């Protein structure tokens, strides 16, 4: 089953204004930089983006924010982006903040057909407002609901033509769960190989979750905070 497409533009076929997207990555690590650039070029608008972070001013989701292509963000931490903060304070941008583990689990639940589940995170805080609260074994929990997306866009290290994906180091993060939760899931990979070349025991995302895969060219993979010991 060959799911290869030529490039980010072919992968994004069907993307329309006002759609809901999931985008993998933590900070700038493991973000689908080619698909984000393509969406910037396409100029699609009114997007709801589910992404742990919002990029920086000139890279990652920051470039979509800068063009006002994003209507709403569902994230856990958006602190590295001055334009984000400006749009939010001015009311141009809507944001829904989720505890990071809740966000991760909501994506997994969306992919796994679990409409809702209980977690302790946020009990007693403003996150709990309007949510069902229930006690289990003497501890309080909130009911959280699943997230899905019109397009889930993920970035992997290696992929095969059947859509199987392997991530490298901490560039996995949200990519694996988001891949499960897209009506259409796009994977961009640094290296695309024929089906059969990846070790079937070492697949992070089985191909069934991925509808389109392409190999990106010349990844920038920008480092946010280069901390060294020398």
């Amino acid at each position, binding site marked *: 089953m060959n799911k290869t497409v030529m490039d980010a533009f072919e992968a994004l076929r069907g993307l329309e204004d006002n759609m809901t997207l999931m985008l993998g990555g933590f900070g700038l690590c493991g973000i689908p930089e080619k698909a984000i650039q393509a969406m910037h070029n396409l100029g699609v608008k009114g997007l709801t983006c589910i992404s742990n972070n919002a990029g920086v001013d000139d890279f990652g989701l920051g470039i979509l924010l800068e063009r006002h292509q994003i209507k709403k963000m569902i994230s856990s931490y958006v602190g590295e982006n001055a334009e984000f903060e400006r749009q939010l304070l001015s009311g141009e941008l809507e944001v829904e903040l989720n*505890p990071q583990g809740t966000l991760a689990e909501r994506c997994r639940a969306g992919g796994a057909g679990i409409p809702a589940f209980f977690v302790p995170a946020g009990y007693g805080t403003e996150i709990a407002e309007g949510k069902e609260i229930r006690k289990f074994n003497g501890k309080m929990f909130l009911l959280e609901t699943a997230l899905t997306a019109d397009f889930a866009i993920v970035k992997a290290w290696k992929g095969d033509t059947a859509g199987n994906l392997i991530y490298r180091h901490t560039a996995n993060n949200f990519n694996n769960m988001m891949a499960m939760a897209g009506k259409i899931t796009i994977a961009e990979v640094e290296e695309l190989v024929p089906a059969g070349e990846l070790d079937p025991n070492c697949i992070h995302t089985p191909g069934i979750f991925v509808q389109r895969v392409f190999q990106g060219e010349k990844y920038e993979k920008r480092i946010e905070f280069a901390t060294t010991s020398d």
Partner: protein
Amino acid sequence: MSLDKNEIAKRIAKELKDGYYVNLGIGIPTLVANFIPKVIEVVLQSENGLLGIGPFPIKKELDADLINAGKQTVTYVKGAAFFDSATSFAMIRGGHIDLTVLGAFQVNERGDIASWKIPGKMIKGMGGAMDLVASAKNIIVAMTHTDRKGKSKLLKECNLPLTGVSCVKRIVTDIAVVDITPAGFKLIERAPGVSVEEIVEKTEAPIIVNGDIPQMQL
């Protein structure tokens, strides 16, 4: 003398026990890693998907795919494992982490913590902090005892939005070690040269002082 950041981290490092899995938050908590006693083995978890954080890399080994939860480049140790965010928070939420150290703006006498939001000023988000404080068996807060204006951060009631409730077990500040007990704050240790009176004065909420309060050993 009040402690500097590194001294706070050094004091917290004494809380580590052999075999602990530990999550260190951004800021002072991250520094704790520099003071882990050599005689014990501790595994550091990073909620972005790494069990077994190593030291910062040398320049030649900088790797964009290898960062900690503060988005700083790191390395990994032997026996490390990488995984996705859902699995990472399964570790945290499932109670598999032995100790969590994180910063805070305020802690109240019931162990409620405010650490993520200053209304009208800061809207960066809670990241993994709400998951961590709602789940950890053992939470130590690292912070200065007072804010820049000299106002106490150990309060009867937090006035900033909460990160979690009834969760903090111990606070290590620049002048004291304070436990949260069913009866409220309790002074455990004082920084070298800092008097009990100074600590009591800088703590807005009542604080229990039982007998002689020992100086921290650093």
